[in-house]
């Protein structure tokens, strides 16, 4: 992959009056990467995107694109192109005029523009649709026109602000693949904003998880999923079961947690917190539903949990068991359906087993609300 233009955020603060929208963000996005900001709505991820595209001035800190400080450079002078959440296709212009708007600004002739539009329309698989109006296109088609319009400006960095959120599920999943393909074909840096962890995980090279203006963790999808560094990251990305407690003992990179309800449990300390977590600290332990399995009832040990089954669900590819958990939250166990026989456990006590490497300890913190 060609080395595209990187984007750096240095000590970036953005305030609106007393409200801090972005707090001391430091991000280093490599050229040619597909980079996602993942977080719930209102966490400041769109604000970061607007600061990168130039619609907002940072209160403090810098935005660097390709190593150049963008301070004082307006959105129309930056080598970025933004795909808006609502796409912002110009409703009165035909599709080909929309796509080549950036060329019109530069004074290109209609013939050149027409030619370029046809090329891009071929690329986005909408050949011959140039004379339609945006209102005459379907949602997915509009989506692709917006991408073509942004690409026509030949930006070094393409910024995407939740562009798939208006589409239905099927189309969304299809567009994920398509976006990733386009990114790999053109080889420029994509910065993608989403609250959908599925989108972030499937498309991104790297992900930044954001919460209330703060970047909690930056890493590739596997790291974020398997080795979260905060309680928020652990609970926001994918489903997770939480066990609250205190650190009672530290053994190298592992720890014993005396949990409020399930006794003393053994787990791995997440990489970012190794050496930082102390005995006596409030901590949270996370185990994914698929990392739990059924053990013979009554088995004892520091990687066994006993629980009362509330109810069960059959979801096709998995059996889900919901048990009474810790701190009001249920513990969910997913058992893959491999055609085995499965007993109904409703109302019974069961014992759950996990691998210590799959249980992650982080300092106690705010959880993502469902």
């Amino acid at each position, binding site marked *: 992959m060609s080395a595209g233009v990187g984007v750096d955020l240095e000590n970036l603060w953005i305030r609106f009056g007393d409200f801090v929208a972005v707090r001391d963000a430091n991000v280093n996005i490599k050229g040619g990467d597909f980079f996602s900001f993942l977080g719930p709505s209102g966490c400041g991820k769109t604000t970061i995107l607007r600061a990168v*595209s130039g619609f907002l001035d940072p209160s403090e800190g810098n935005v660097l694109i390709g190593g150049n400080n963008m301070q004082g450079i307006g959105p*129309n002078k930056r080598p970025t192109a*933004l795909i808006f959440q609502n796409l*912002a296709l110009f409703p009165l212009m035909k599709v080909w005029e929309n796509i080549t708007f*950036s060329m019109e600004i530069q004074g290109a002739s209609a013939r050149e523009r027409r030619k370029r539009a046809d090329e891009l329309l071929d690329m986005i698989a909408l050949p*011959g649709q140039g004379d*339609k109006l945006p209102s005459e296109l379907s949602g997915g088609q509009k989506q692709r026109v917006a991408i073509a319009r942004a690409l026509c400006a030949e930006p070094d960095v393409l910024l995407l602000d939740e562009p798939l959120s208006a589409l239905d599920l099927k189309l969304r999943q299809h567009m994920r693949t398509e976006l990733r393909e386009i990114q790999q074909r053109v080889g420029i840096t994509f910065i993608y904003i989403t609250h959908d962890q599925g989108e972030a995980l499937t498309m991104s090279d790297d992900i930044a998880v954001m919460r209330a203006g703060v970047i909690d963790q930056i890493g590739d999808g596997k790291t974020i999923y398997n080795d979260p560094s905060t309680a928020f990251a652990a609970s926001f990305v994918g489903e997770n079961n939480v066990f609250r407690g205190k650190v009672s003992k530290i053994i190298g990179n592992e720890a014993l947690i005396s949990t409020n309800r399930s006794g003393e449990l053994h787990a791995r300390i997440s990489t970012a917190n190794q050496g930082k977590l102390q005995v006596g600290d409030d901590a949270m332990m996370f185990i994914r539903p698929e990392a739990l399995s059924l053990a013979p009832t009554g088995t004892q040990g520091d990687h066994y949990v006993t629980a009362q089954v509330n109810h069960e669900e059959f979801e096709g590819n998995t059996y889900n068991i919901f048990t009474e958990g810790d701190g009001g939250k249920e513990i969910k166990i997913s058992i893959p359906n491999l055609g085995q026989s499965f007993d109904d456990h409703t109302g019974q006590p069961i014992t759950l087993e996990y691998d210590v490497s799959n249980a992650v300890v982080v300092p106690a913190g705010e959880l993502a609300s469902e």
Partner: protein
Amino acid sequence: MNPDKIIRYSIWIYLAIFFAYLLGPLIIMSATAFNSPGFPRMTPWECLTFDWFGALFRDERILNGIWNSVLVGIGTVIMSVSMGLAGALMLTQIWPKLRATYYTIIIAPILIPGVVLGISTLVFWDRINRMLGLGADSFLSNGLFLTIIGQSTFIASYCMLVLVARLQRYDMTLTEAALDLGATHAQAFRKVLMPFMFPAIASAGVLAFLASFENYNTTTFTFGEYPTLTIELAQKVRYGITPAISALAFMIVALTVFFALVNEANIKRKALIAEARKDATVGELAGKVEVPGFLSRNPAAIALIVLLIGTATVVGSAMAYSPDQCIAGVQEQKRLETERRIQELRDQRAKDAAEKSQQEGGAETQSTPKPSNNSGFGSVFAPGTLEGSDSDAGDAAPTDSGGNNSGFGNVFDPNALQNDDN
């Protein structure tokens, strides 16, 4: 009859009364433009004539007034649409705490009486003029400038309301998208915002021109040496009315209806095209869109064509038609009528005299002409002396005469003189 039916009938009766009130005066006024008497009236119908249109076009003051109105109108449209647009854009992005105050201020001119606006404009610019040490002939005390400024003060508020309604449906991210694609602010404004706003700007412009054209209250204080059409009309109407004004009114009504129909036909046509595009296949779009015939399913367009044919017929026949014979006929008839009355009167007198000789009293009351008889005494003096004026023109000055009986009106009638002016 069941209650539902009663309600339905009363709705239709109400609608009929409503539109009679709304349109009746205009129709009657228009009709008087084609009747020959010198005072605008519909009854009795004497002769169909087109002379009042000729009189209108020979009236220098009216023509000059139209010219001034157009000048003022153009200035006002430019000023109030641009101020209204700026005001509307500002409203969408002003500091929220200031918004209510700001809105109150820019909406206030609609509610301030036009008289007050006229006076304040006059007083303020007169003061500025004096502060700058300019003479009475500077452009600041020029009627054209003052009228445009005075009218724009409140017309801009109307424009602002029209524009803000459209602007609220504008997606601000479109401007951002244009900037993001490399456009300057001016380019984004011109290529994205303006095309979107264009329909509203056009209607604001039309509204501004019409409001300016018909404005009287403000202009009456500021016009100076540039009396607009409305000012000229007001002068004429206050000091005596002629069917030439009806002729002008008829033309304005006809033009209004014409443009309303053009607009309506156009809207319908666009809707039909949009409908056709929606059904069109990709191939049709790439090649040619078959626009449905201008007339099919478009009643406004049909009405428009009927109106045009009608106008052409009327104008054509007006060229060929001469009402002189009819007018002469009417005059002859009137003369005969008058003679008959005089004869009757004589007979009556003779009879009275005969009766009087027999029994006394009562003669005086009997000889008084019936008050309901409008063409009473006037006719006795009028037809021979005043050409073309009819016997009832005394109404022209009801405010002067106190509108009592129509008897002697003709002799003192200002209209008798006015007819010569025309």
